[in-house]
């Protein structure tokens, strides 16, 4: 700690900070542009100048850039000094000399750091009266718009994109008063994290293109604290709604998880919530004709179906909330509840859960991953399967430069100095995959091989670390040397991190990862961490809830279950169409509860229109076992009274209560959560994941909209000129509309949107944190459910090495960030970004087949046929074929299967 004196007052601050951080953490307002909590200080913009004095007696002082001056003990500074104020006002005037006066048509307006800082400095009248320099803009792809004229040259974008996210196709061009930030040429930004430019840019150069189509000001939106549904990481998001549609997704700060950044799938993949094809009312069929139902009819129809059935099974979903899955389990009974996860994946998830609980190895939070100093990733291309983890791993790798700088006593925020000292130095990272990965640019060594061989390497590393770990027989010498090399690198590290997951489709990889972690622990490397990546938002939660696999559900149908209730799950995405068709055709009745109209819904006799994450509340559990609550953003029936969309758990509860065979009395979310907690001790912690519906601040609910929200009395005038009462939210502590409390200083950690007086941009998160860039003042939301204990033995089922069979190809799982997720793949911009997905084989195999690159190849499996373009990879093993699972209807269960009918052209 250090004592600093600011404008005559004494404060205790962290002496390792710079003065800007220290002042902001104290809640004092100092304007800034180029500094960012995650990007460090470079002193480029000169906006954060303050007066610094030698001592208490010095009255002259000198101007310093507060972001570049350490908050050392006994500092005397003044923010309010007249000269410093005049300087800051001049700086913003200079920065803005070329800035267009286009706030009224600029999408950043009302959400703009430049506006906030300009107001803060008091600059309000432009004196520059010459021609402004103008630029041509670039087309940067479907996600991000470019408007270079608004640039104030703070350099944050390029520091984020190149230095933080390791993107290569973005830079700064020109010199002096004429610089340009963009790609070398127009084209889609290649980084999977490009969307963060929208929030990193303090002005309107980079804006959310998906929002442009249906634009409105931030203050005219309704928000709720939410959780990204697009993978298992559980990033915190703040979706914004207007006129009954989600219009943008902003990052929601969580100091333990995603802090300032999201991946582009999470930020831009929300379009599926706005699809016209979504079921907006429950419906059934009379003959061929689709008939919409009201709540009573729908519930009665479901109840009648259930009563007339001999056995009703429920198929849950890893993309549905714990509440919905539990409500389904309650309705059909534990014996009739199935998770809806394909058997192989379910086994892997169960193994992962077992490891999380009993391996004795700590699972770090996303934020903590950034502090590890050696990383092994087995089998997963994490940029595709858990992208935000990859961004954290990239920061971990750069820890080497931080360490080198620390030796020379360079402060952690001196980012330019750190980069100079580091000179691209990296902590070691070792990856294995069936092909190359998107982390290739930072890996020390990468091994491309079939999953079984990757696992063998993993087992060999564990054995090299701890000889009592099972040894691998017949490992070739070269690989053995590599295993020894990696083992010694890991043993020398202080905090090694082992990453694997379920999506490589190989249990042995998870076993091997666990063995490495345990071996390190046994050798005294106590700070070893392990991260296991699951596939979907609630894969871990559903695994904790428990249930039999989808395959068993399909068997149950063939054994006589005559009715199935499918919850938010397109079964065709999981197992072969043949098996699904066979089972569904045997059913007498199929009820689907979903917010998408999927191939499974098409087979349903009754569809209950569920709410997506934007229209329902629920709890999901991420890959580290963190339960997090997402809250309903808006009530769709307010805008369209004929819309009848309810949370899936509410539908299922209503059916239960009419059916009353196994009645549940959970009428509200809190009652349901309480019931889960009492029925399932392993999930009892979810009660603490978020405040309940009774939570109040000074007797008020929390507001979902900013207090400047406008147009409410007019927005329904096309339906009726009488403004109805706002929808009442019984399930959460949030009020629809702007009515309610939104005090940034209130004791709360669920924040619908970031706003504080004078701070309208995402930089307002400063005002919610214990220290800037730290944790939320009242604790980061969410609760970890899993306590790790040490009971595990080494796993010893070491697979045999892969041997290619002529004319056969083993499927290597190539999940894609853009296109593999069941939900976001329905969004138009994601489809555009994903482009056409290809299958990958080794050129030597192609030669044998007599096909050229980019030719169309076809194959059949499980009663389905695919025709896809072909791409070559020198890195994929001969005898294997990389398939972009999840895209093009390629089901997850294809991983590891054999394909024997690959041929050129159309089948």
């Amino acid at each position, binding site marked *: 700690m250090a004592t600093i004196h600011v404008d005559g007052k004494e404060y205790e601050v962290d002496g390792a900070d710079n003065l800007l951080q220290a002042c902001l953490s104290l809640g004092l307002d100092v304007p800034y542009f180029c500094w960012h909590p995650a990007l460090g200080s470079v002193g480029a913009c000169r906006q954060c100048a303050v007066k610094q004095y030698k001592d208490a007696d010095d009255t002259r002082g000198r101007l310093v850039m507060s972001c570049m001056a350490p908050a050392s003990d006994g500092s005397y500074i003044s923010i309010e000094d007249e000269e410093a104020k005049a300087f800051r006002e001049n700086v913003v005037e200079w920065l803005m000399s070329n800035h267009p006066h286009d706030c009224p048509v600029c999408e950043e307006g009302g959400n703009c750091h430049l506006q906030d800082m300009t107001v803060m400095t008091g600059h309000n009248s432009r004196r520059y009266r010459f021609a402004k*320099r*103008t*630029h*041509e803009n*670039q087309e940067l792809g479907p996600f991000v718009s470019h408007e270079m004229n608004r640039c104030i040259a703070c350099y944050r974008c390029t520091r984020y994109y*190149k230095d933080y996210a390791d993107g*290569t*196709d*973005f*830079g*700064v*061009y*020109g*010199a002096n*008063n*004429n610089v*340009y930030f*963009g*790609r*070398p*040429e*127009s*084209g889609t930004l290649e980084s999977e994290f490009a969307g963060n430019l929208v929030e990193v840019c303090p002005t309107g150069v980079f804006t959310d293109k998906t929002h442009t189509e249906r634009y409105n000001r931030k203050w005219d939106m309704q928000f709720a604290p939410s959780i990204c549904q697009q993978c298992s990481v559980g990033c915190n998001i703040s979706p914004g709604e207007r006129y009954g549609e989600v219009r943008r997704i902003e990052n929601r700060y969580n100091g333990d998880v995603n802090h300032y950044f999201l991946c582009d799938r999470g930020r831009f993949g929300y379009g599926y919530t706005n699809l016209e094809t979504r079921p907006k009312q429950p419906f059934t069929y009379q003959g061929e004709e689709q008939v919409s139902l009201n709540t009573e009819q729908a519930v009665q129809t479901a109840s009648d179906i259930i009563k007339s059935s001999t056995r009703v099974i429920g198929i849950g979903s890893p993309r549905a909330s714990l509440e919905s899955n539990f409500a389904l389990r309650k309705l059909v009974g534990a014996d009739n509840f199935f998770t809806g996860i394909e058997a192989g994946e379910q086994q892997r998830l169960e193994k992962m859960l077992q490891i999380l609980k009993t391996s004795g190895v700590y699972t770090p939070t996303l934020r903590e991953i950034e502090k590890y100093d050696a990383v092994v990733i087995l089998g997963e291309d994490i940029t595709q399967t858990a992208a935000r983890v990859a961004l954290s791993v990239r920061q971990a790798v750069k820890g080497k430069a931080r360490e080198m700088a620390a030796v020379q006593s360079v402060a952690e925020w001196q980012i330019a100095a750190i980069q100079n000292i580091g*000179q*691209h130095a990296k902590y070691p990272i070792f990856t294995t995959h069936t092909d190359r990965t998107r982390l290739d640019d930072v890996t020390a060594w990468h091994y491309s091989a079939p999953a079984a061989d990757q696992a063998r390497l993993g087992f060999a590393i564990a054995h090299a670390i701890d000889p009592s770990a099972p040894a691998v027989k017949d490992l070739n010498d070269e690989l053995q040397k590599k295993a020894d090399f990696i083992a010694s690198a890991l043993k020398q590290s202080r905090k090694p991190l082992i990453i694997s997951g379920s999506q490589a489709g190989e249990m042995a990889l998870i076993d091997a990862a666990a063995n490495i972690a345990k071996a390190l622990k046994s050798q005294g490397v106590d700070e070893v961490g392990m991260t296991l990546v699951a596939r979907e938002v609630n894969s871990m939660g559903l695994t904790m809830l428990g249930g039999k696999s989808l395959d068993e559900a399909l068997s149950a149908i063939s054994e006589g279950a005559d009715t199935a209730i499918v919850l938010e799950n397109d079964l065709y995405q999981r197992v072969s169409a043949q098996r699904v068709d066979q089972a569904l055709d045997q059913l007498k009745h199929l009820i689907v509860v979903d917010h998408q109209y999927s191939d499974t819904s098409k087979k349903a006799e009754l569809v209950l229109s569920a709410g997506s994450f934007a229209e329902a509340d629920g709890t999901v559990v991420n890959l580290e076992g963190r339960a997090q609550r997402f809250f309903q953003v808006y009530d769709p029936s307010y805008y369209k009274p004929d819309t009848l969309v309810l949370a899936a758990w509410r539908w299922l509860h209503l059916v239960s209560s009419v059916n009353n065979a196994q009645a549940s009395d959970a009428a509200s979310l809190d009652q349901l959560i309480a019931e889960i907690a009492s029925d399932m001790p392993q999930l009892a912690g979810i009660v603490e994941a978020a405040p309940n519906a009774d939570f109040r601040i000074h007797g008020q609910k929390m507001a979902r909209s900013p207090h400047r929200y406008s147009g409410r009395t007019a927005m329904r005038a096309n339906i009726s000129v009488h403004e109805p009462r706002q929808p009442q939210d019984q399930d959460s502590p949030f009020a629809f509309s702007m009515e309610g409390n939104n005090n940034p200083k209130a004791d709360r950690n669920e924040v619908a949107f970031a706003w504080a007086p004078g701070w309208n941009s995402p930089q307002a998160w400063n005002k919610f944190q214990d220290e800037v860039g730290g944790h939320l003042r009242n604790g980061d939301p969410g609760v970890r459910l899993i306590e790790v204990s040490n009971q595990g033995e080494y796993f010893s089922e070491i697979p045999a090495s892969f041997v290619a069979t002529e004319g056969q190809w083993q499927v290597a799982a190539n999940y894609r960030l853009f296109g593999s997720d069941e939900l976001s793949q329905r969004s138009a911009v994601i489809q555009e970004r994903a482009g056409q997905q290809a299958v990958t084989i080794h050129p030597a195999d192609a030669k044998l087949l007599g096909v050229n690159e980019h030719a169309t190849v076809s194959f059949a499996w499980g009663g389905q046929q695919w025709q896809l373009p072909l791409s070559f990879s020198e890195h994929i093993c001969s005898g294997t074929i990389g398939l972009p699972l999840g895209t093009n209807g390629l089901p997850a269960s294809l991983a590891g299967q054999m394909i024997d009918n690959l041929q050129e052209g159309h089948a």
Partner: protein
Amino acid sequence: MNQPIKIVTVSDDSDGFVLSDADAQAIEHEKHHYEDPRAASIEALKIVQKSHGWVPDGAIKAISDLLGIPASDVEGVATFYSQIYRQPVGKHIIRYCDSVVCHITGFEDIVTELEKQLKIKPGQTTPDGRFTLLPTCCLGNCDKGPTMMVNDDTHVRLVPSNLANILEQYQ
């Protein structure tokens, strides 16, 4: 003078740029002088400019491939330096000094005369491709101003009436 930086989509034509073997070899040679290949990017750009007169878009890509660094880095360096030309220039390049001392000694008359003779404005190239007229700041000849360089030759104590004779030397 602010000229907008023209960022255009690389067309197929400029992709047609082929680095000559000699240039590629020279760049490789430079690359080995440095620990970080980024350090060779200025030399690489100079090599291309020397043989090609200016640096086309295709050369940025070729250099980035050769040095194994992102094209955005090469382009950043190329556009930073005013002496690296990212647009076609004339056979001869006139750089007149417009800094303080030459301002006192009357560079404005020199520029007016040059503009009149060449019928172009600073930053432009004559239609026949013979001259490109560019301002520069200080040629280190303050005691002999106004001054200008044409290619590698320095001309001092310029008077408008003698400019035609000087330009005559550069065909």
